[in-house]
């Protein structure tokens, strides 16, 4: 079927709820109204009010509750309405979800998913625009997944729901509805922790993910560059091998991300390339990222986002000398 990213989320939730009675969906406005982006549309009608639940306006309870429910044996898929409202619940990720397995030597685990739309570009108010995958990826024990296509979204969300450990599933809301492509019917998984090579190329490697994929591909097309484009898909655990092997081949690399530059995921990618492929590099690795500022409010938010000319500028810098 043809589907957008948000429809693919919905499809995966339908499939998994149908397959496994232990999958329970909850969050603010997810049931009666089907979610503010309609990601959970029709779930209430199909699976009933025991398994599709509108929660109070309580991020701590949503994430902490999911953790406890998962420890008990259910498979909660909790929604945080916007990633800007995860911070109150960050404590539950840090203190509990990410370390239950470690704390109990595997006796108890937290097989749960927290889904949330992230990123700038939808003309909303403050706290509706951030990309903090770098901060969340910093937590040992938490997996962080960021899909960029409808087909991947369905497969990765399915894998996340079935995964034995907690997954923070960050949905690129800027492209929720802008890409429509063939999404396979029925259930399938796209493995967590594996990057995808979107374009093969020889001259340099470009690494991006989530909402940065379309502008990155546009930049490569605009510049008519023979680039290998890698869609990271999972922030943690990071697929070092795919990135490093590509850089060994091309000798040059640009990392593109929307979140702030300092201590961003790009920093870690550069470090891993240095660890494993320093001698293959023909030029310094470039980073094209968001700035170390809060995302501006909507009137100036366009300035923040790495657009194709900025990405191409980074590519050309990496290709020079």
């Amino acid at each position, binding site marked *: 079927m043809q589907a957008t990213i948000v429809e693919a989320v919905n499809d995966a939730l339908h499939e998994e709820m149908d397959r496994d009675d232990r999958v329970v969906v909850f969050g603010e406005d997810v049931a009666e*109204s089907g979610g503010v982006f309609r990601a959970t549309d029709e779930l209430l009608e199909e699976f009933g009010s025991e398994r599709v639940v509108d929660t109070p306006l*309580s991020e701590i*309870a949503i994430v902490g509750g999911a953790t406890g429910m998962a420890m008990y044996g259910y498979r909660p898929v909790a929604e945080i309405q916007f990633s800007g409202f995860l911070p109150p619940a960050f404590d539950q990720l840090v203190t509990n979800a990410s370390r239950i397995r470690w704390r109990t030597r595997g006796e108890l685990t937290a097989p749960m998913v927290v889904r949330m739309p992230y990123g700038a570009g939808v003309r909303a108010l403050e706290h509706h625009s951030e990309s903090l995958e770098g901060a969340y990826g910093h937590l040992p024990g938490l997996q962080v997944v960021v899909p960029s296509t409808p087909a991947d979204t369905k497969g990765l969300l399915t894998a996340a729901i079935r995964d034995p450990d907690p997954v923070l599933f960050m949905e690129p809301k800027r492209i929720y509805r802008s890409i429509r492509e063939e999404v396979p019917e029925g259930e399938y998984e796209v493995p967590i922790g594996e990057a995808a090579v979107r374009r093969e190329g020889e001259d340099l490697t470009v690494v991006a993910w989530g909402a940065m994929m379309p502008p990155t591909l546009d930049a490569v097309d605009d510049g008519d560059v023979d680039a290998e484009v890698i869609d990271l898909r999972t922030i943690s655990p990071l697929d070092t091998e795919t990135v490093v092997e590509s850089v060994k081949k091309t000798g040059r690399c640009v990392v593109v991300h929307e979140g702030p530059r300092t201590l961003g995921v790009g920093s870690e990618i550069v470090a891993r390339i240095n660890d494993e492929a320093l001698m293959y590099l023909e030029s310094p690795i470039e980073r094209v990222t968001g700035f*170390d500022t809060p995302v*501006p409010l909507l*009137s100036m938010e366009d*300035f923040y986002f790495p657009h194709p000319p900025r990405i191409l500028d980074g590519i050309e810098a990496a290709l020079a000398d």
Partner: protein
Amino acid sequence: MSDRASDIRAPPAVGDDGGGEVRYLSQSDLEVPTHQIVSPDGSYDDEAIPDLDDEELLDLYRWMVTDRVFSRRMVNIQRRGELGTFGSTRGQEASIIGSAFTLSPDDWLYVGRAWTPMFMRGASMKDMILFWRGIEEGQEAFAKVNAQIAISIGSHLPLVSGIAWGMHLDDADAIATAYLGDGATSTGAAHEGINLASSVGLPALFYCQNNQYAISMPYEKQSGANTIAQKALAYGIDAIRVDGQDVLAVYDAVSSAREKVLEGEPVFVESVTYRLDAHTTSDDPTRYRTDEEVDHWEEHDPIERYREFLKSEGLWSEIDHDAIVEEIDAEFDEALAAANAMEERAVAEMFTHVYDELPPELARQLDEFEELLERRPEMYDFIEQRPKG
């Protein structure tokens, strides 16, 4: 404080246990009255009318109409594509105006769904248009009148307690007030903020507009507590539940609360009201509530009720309603024109005010970006400053 502690620590006396029977503390034993002065049919007891002179009574009307006109105009310009989004306050005018009317300019204010209180403190409609257009100068203007809007729901309650703490240390003749919604009462931050005020004994007022919904979530599902007001008791502070469609009752309740708060006794007020419009312009309320319900509340229009009161008082003849609306419309037109005249801002705007001084790495990022914009003007194919939201 110390008396209370010694009472609590004393072991219970034998025989205090109700004869060996388990006894519950239950909300069903609580009586939670709702303060009302003008009943829905317009009748009232003369004695109960708060001590306001005619001019003030007329001001209350004018401000309520301001609130309504402002919401109408904002929804309209949003539909024309001149605002990102907007949250209308229609239906909540008595709740908003009756409460804000009690505050003094020295008080600090942190609001949820309540915009006109900013105007009552001297911020302009233009500032509010800028805010909803995502132009930082909006919040800057509110800060100048010691007021802010909280977007992360509930996050402001600890701040308000902290502001009140400063006032307490200063022995200031002022209070800090948080407006919050019914949904906000479910956040951890709200609990901690209220409890802090109770624990230290701070001049903080918590004014909760229970407009029955948090987006699609009706209050009955938000919590098992029959009323929000009763929650205050668990923190050891006093509460008032008031009919939020009755501007005089709201004024009466909150001015009484403010007196207590000034003495360092925090108070929680639940104002029972209703959001007649959508949550914001992006919301479709037909997905979660019936037309009958909305119609029912349309019949409890707070402005209509107050009009009945003014008529009974013989004050209605003093009011030229159409002229008031015309005046407010003109004020809005002027504000909109001023907002539309906002100059485009330089890109440096994004980088300033993150810190007092730009750290070297941030300065470098700014330089690099300015240089890039010059070198690659095609960037502007992707960048639109949106002075109109």
